[in-house]
Structure formats: C-alpha cells, structure tokens
C-alpha cells in the first residue's frame, strides 16, 4: 500500500514536531518560569471527591503509561512473556482494568470540577482542553483494547519497531500502515497531547519528586559556604 501524504504528516512530521515542541517548551518554561511548575492541586478546596477522582485516575494512567513504555523499550521480552496465553491474559486484563480505572477517575474529576464552584474557579481553558483530550485518549485506548485485543502483542510487533524507526531518524511507516483507524487515531492524539503538554499543567509529571527519596530529612541553605566542623 502506498504511503500517503497524510500518513507522512501524521506519523513522521507530527511526532518530530511535537517532540521538538515538548523538549524546547518544557525546558524553556522550566528555565524562564520555574514558578509556574506546580501540581496545581485543588484538594484544598474540595477533599472528598478529590480522592475518588484523582486516586483511581493516577493509579490507572500510571499503570497504562508504564505498560506502553515497557512495550516500547522491551518488545522482545514482552513477546516472550506473551508466549503463554495465561500470561498474555494477565497482561491484557491488567491494562484494561487500569484503563477503565483511569476513565472512572477522570470522569469523576471532570464532574467534580463542574460541580464545585470553588474548584471551577481555579479551572482555566487549558485545563478543560487537557481534560477533554485525556478523556478522548482514554476512551480511544479502551476502545482499542476491547475491539483490537492482544495489544501487548501487536504493540511490540508493530508500534514498537515504528517508534524505534523514528528514534533512529529512519521512519518506516510500513509497520503501522495496515493498523486499524482506531489505533491510528490513538497514536495521533498521543502526539497532540505531547505537543501541548509544555503549555499545560501536565508539566507536573516532569517534576515528580525523586531526590526526596534519597535526601536527608532537613535542608539548610547557606549564603556563604558552610564551614566543615571537625
């Protein structure tokens, strides 16, 4: 099948473009406006529904994203794991449950933002765009999982090589040319989300705390170098 211009645009131009925007945007924002990097939590304004929305959403989405990343990084190992049907089922069901969990949580937090006027005041247009894109992306993801099953297998066999061909600056669309439209839409939307991330609250993903896990409990800053006391 010949590769059309639109395919070139969506699966070659777009990914490079959004990665450029993503890296330039987040780095530029981090350096020029570090003050704007925040989780922008609204838990202070509403506590109860916050739990039922944010917790399932985050646990779900983190699991699903981790699955995508592992399949991208270790396609052979995933295929080897899937060689026994039971293990394939475990993987597929885990992913589906996590995806559904994320949808429940996301819908919960969208409803929460609409219901509580205090939370609505701290929600801007970009937040609504992000929420809609995420909802669309989760729904399309679950659609793919249900109607085009065994994604852990074909992701490793088709999408992972495609993504690696992008990484190697030698794009090869033959891997994905035959994929169903639902999967393609899911991929394109992923690129769109990556592209707008630098301008939204999504940057909080980049600043999840890790030094905390290793540092000493107390932090002291000196204006002059502290003298070592023997």
């Amino acid at each position: 099948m010949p590769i059309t211009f639109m395919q070139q645009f969506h699966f070659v131009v777009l990914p490079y473009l959004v990665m450029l925007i993503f890296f330039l945007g987040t780095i530029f924002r981090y350096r020029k406006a570090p003050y704007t990097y925040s989780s922008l939590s609204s838990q202070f304004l509403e506590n109860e529904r916050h739990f039922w929305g944010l917790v399932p959403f985050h646990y779900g989405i983190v699991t699903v994203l981790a699955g995508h990343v592992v399949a991208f990084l270790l396609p052979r190992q995933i295929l080897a794991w899937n060689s026994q049907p039971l293990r394939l089922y475990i993987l597929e069901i885990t992913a589906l449950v996590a995806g559904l969990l994320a949808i429940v949580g996301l819908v919960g937090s969208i409803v929460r933002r609409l219901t509580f006027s205090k939370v609505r005041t701290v929600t801007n247009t970009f937040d609504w765009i992000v929420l809609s894109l995420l909802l669309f992306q989760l729904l399309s993801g679950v659609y793919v999982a249900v109607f085009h099953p065994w994604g852990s297998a074909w992701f490793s066999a088709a999408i992972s090589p495609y993504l690696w061909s992008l990484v190697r600056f030698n794009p090869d669309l033959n891997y994905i040319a035959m994929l169903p439209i639902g999967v393609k839409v899911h991929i394109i939307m992923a690129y769109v989300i990556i592209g707008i991330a630098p301008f939204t609250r999504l940057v909080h993903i980049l600043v999840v705390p890790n030094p905390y896990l290793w540092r000493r409990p107390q932090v002291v800053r000196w204006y002059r170098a502290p003298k070592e006391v023997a």
Partner: protein
Amino acid sequence: MNVRSQVSMVFHLDKCIGCHTCSIACKNIWTDRRGTEYMWWNNVETKPGTGFPTAWEDQEKYNGGWEVEDGKLQLKSTSKAKTVFNIYHNPSMPTMDDYYEPWTYDYQHLFNAPEGPDQPTAKPISMVTGELINIEAGPNWDDDLGGSPIYAENDPNLASLSPEQRAQLSAVERLVLFYFPRICNHCLNPSCVASCPSGALYKRGEDGIVLVDQKRCRGWRMCVAACPYKKMFYNWNTGKSEKCILCFPRLETGQAPACFHSCVGRIRYLGVLLYDADRIEEVASLPKEKLIEGQRSLILDPNDPEVVAAARQSDVHDSVVDAAQRSPVYQFVKTWKIALPPHLEFRTMPMLFYVPPMSPVMSSQENGTISHVSDNLFHDIDESRIPMKFLASLFGAGDESFVRYALRKQKAVRWYRRAMTVGDVDMPTAERMLREADCSPDEAEAIYRLTALCTFDERFVIPPMHREEAIQMMEDPLTHKQDVGFGFMSGPHRGM
C-alpha cells in the same frame, strides 16, 4: 559542637491584650493577594478555644509533627515511602473548611441597587468564587469566647482536665481566657522541611529562618499536613505553599518584623540564640518528659568562652555572637526559665517561646473581704482559674512543674516590685517569695525591667544579617576585573 545561630522569639502572654494589630500588620504586608486571603501567618487565638485552623492542636485529626517509633524520629503524616503513594491525594490535608472561606461584601450593590422600599445592603460574597455566601467561620471566629460551650469546649488542651476544672473554666460571670498570638516557630527540627518532596523548604543556615523556595515548590502540600502548628498555608490560586518569612527583608535591614514592630502591648521580643546543631535529632527523640530540659540544653551560653570559640570555629560571625550575648530571648528562656515552647511534644523544637499568663485575679476571698495573704504565698497559682494542667498542656509538654516555676517567679517579681513601689506588701514577705520562687533581687529587677520598662532596642536585638557575605556564593568579583571589569563572572569572549 556545631554552633549555629537562630533568630528566636519570646511572646509575653501576660501582656497580650488580644488587639490583633500584629495580624493586621502582617496581612497588609504579605497576604493580601488572591489565594492568600484566608492565610494568617500571624494570628491571635483565644484560649481556651479551638484556634485557627479549627482544633489545630489535635494531631489525631491533622497528623502533624513527629513521633518516636522504635527509638526513631518519624513524621506522623508522611514518610518517604508513603509520599510515593500519597502524592495524588494527601490523606492528612486540611481543607478550606478547616480554616474559613474568605469573603468581602458586595459594596457596589449599595450604589447600583434599583429604587425600592428598603435600604440596600451589601451582602457577603466569597473571595474565592465571587458568589453570595453564608459566613460560617472566620479567622478569629471564637475571639473572646473563652467560656463558650460551642467553641472553647472543643479546645484539645482541655482533654487532661477534670470535669470540675472544666466547669470552673466556663462558670458564668467567672469566665476566664487569655490570648495566644502565633506565628511560624522557625523550628530547629521543622517537620515541614522534612516532609517537602521537592526540597523547596529550607532553613537558612545563618539565621535559622524557615522559607519556601517558590520556584521549587510543586504544590504537593505535604508541608501543610506535616506542620503541627498549621503555619504552612497552601495558596490555592498559584498552587504553591507559603508561610511566615519572619519579615526577613525587614530583618536584613535591621528592622523588627512587622508583627513585632506593631505590637501594642509590647509583648514581643526577638534575639539570637546559639545552639548545637549536632544534637538536634538526639534531643528531638527524647522521651516527652525530658523534652523541655533537652531543648534548653541545646541552647548554648553565648558568654561561655568555650561556646564563643566553637561559634567562631563554626563560622558564626562575631557580631552575631555579640547579639546573642545581648539577646532578651536568652534571658527569658535560659537564664530566668520563664519562657516555654508551645507543644514541644510535637518534637519540632519550636524557637518561639511563651511567658505563660497569670490568671487575672490574684486574691482570695474570705468572709467577703479580699485577702492577699495566705500561709502559702503562691496558693493562687495552683488555684488559679486557668488550671495549671491546661497551661502545662500548651507550654509544658504536659508537665506542670515548668509552668508553675514560671508563674511563681512572675508573681514573686510582682510582689517584690509592689513592696518597693506601693508598699502595701512588706519587704520580708516579698523577699521570702523571691527565695521560694528561685529568684534573686537582681534577677527580679532585671525581669521587671525587660517586662515593664523595655525599650525598642532592648526588645529587639537584631543581629547583622551579613548579606554582604552572600557574595561568597559567587566567584570572586575581582577575578576578571583586568579583562572585562569588576564583577564579571566569566572572561572576555568574542561571540558565544
């Protein structure tokens, strides 16, 4: 010995009149922005009372501060492992309802209201949403309601009192209350700093002020939960935490913090304490009954030549040591032992100390005549209407003896001065009281001076902050002077 200096504070509660001037001074300078309206870095509470946020002292509810588990000091609200799982939803996070929803009034309506039979009114509107609201709480909602069964009865410090003592506290027409102004304690073992996943909170090495780096704060809110005094506030608009900064821009220019400067009752004292930073963890892990003595032992005598030498070793500036030697806080806390830390059992080692208040009436009634004299000269201290247990819960980590000591000394000083100036108390009795209160006449005179006659400069001994030394953070400004000029941090280049 690792000597560090700490700008520390004493609030003399016996002098506080509860006028809230401090709160207003602070609010007008620091927290009049959107997202901070509800914050009161300085607030004044009525005790007995529930305070701000409501019942903040109840750590069963808020999980603030530290606890010792298997001999190890641990945060009550979080830990490194817990942070990983609780980052999406902080289980110990207070909400705006625990404080209050800030409001203003719809003043425009007074001008725009259509003509009608009634005078237009300005209805309260939320400063968060702009909608009409019913005001249900405020920052000092239980102000002066010391005996009220709705508010004061929920004071967590009343837990240790007997039913009789509780009844006595709220007896009609014999209500008793005192004021409890609070700011950030700038603790030696701050739980807010230890809980911050982003490492945005820090203690300044040179003066011990605890600050939030606004550029590194990510709004995970662990500090709000971890601070047992609830003096960390979440700015719901910017998504960053904020706190009392002890007016460091004022301190750095030699001025007292705004709340100190504006205090009408002149209850506030500020000065440097030198302490041994190596022993903080050891002291903070002590059993509850040893905490107060432990914290006192952390604070070093600035007149001890050994300490002065060690301070120099640790790079504490001589001028700071000099300020520590003149520190009114040292006098109150270490020399006279009449200022005590609030709720030391939270184990953050607060560096704001309180002189406990005397009960308002110091006399006993016999057959209708007022009598000042009893065989036990200090009978009214233990029979005071604010039970010793209550004060001990606040300032003694549960131990009455420290509060009793402070109050007895205060009373002895009063009677000594009364014998000198009014003359209705005979000197031998006053001197006997001084002896019994572990106070020499000289000490009594000094306490009297610093309590009643203190000048501005005696109350606030602000150490030089030596901002000029911050230049050490940079490279030597002279390095490239020959090539490009003074202060350049890199040499001359053509282009990049």
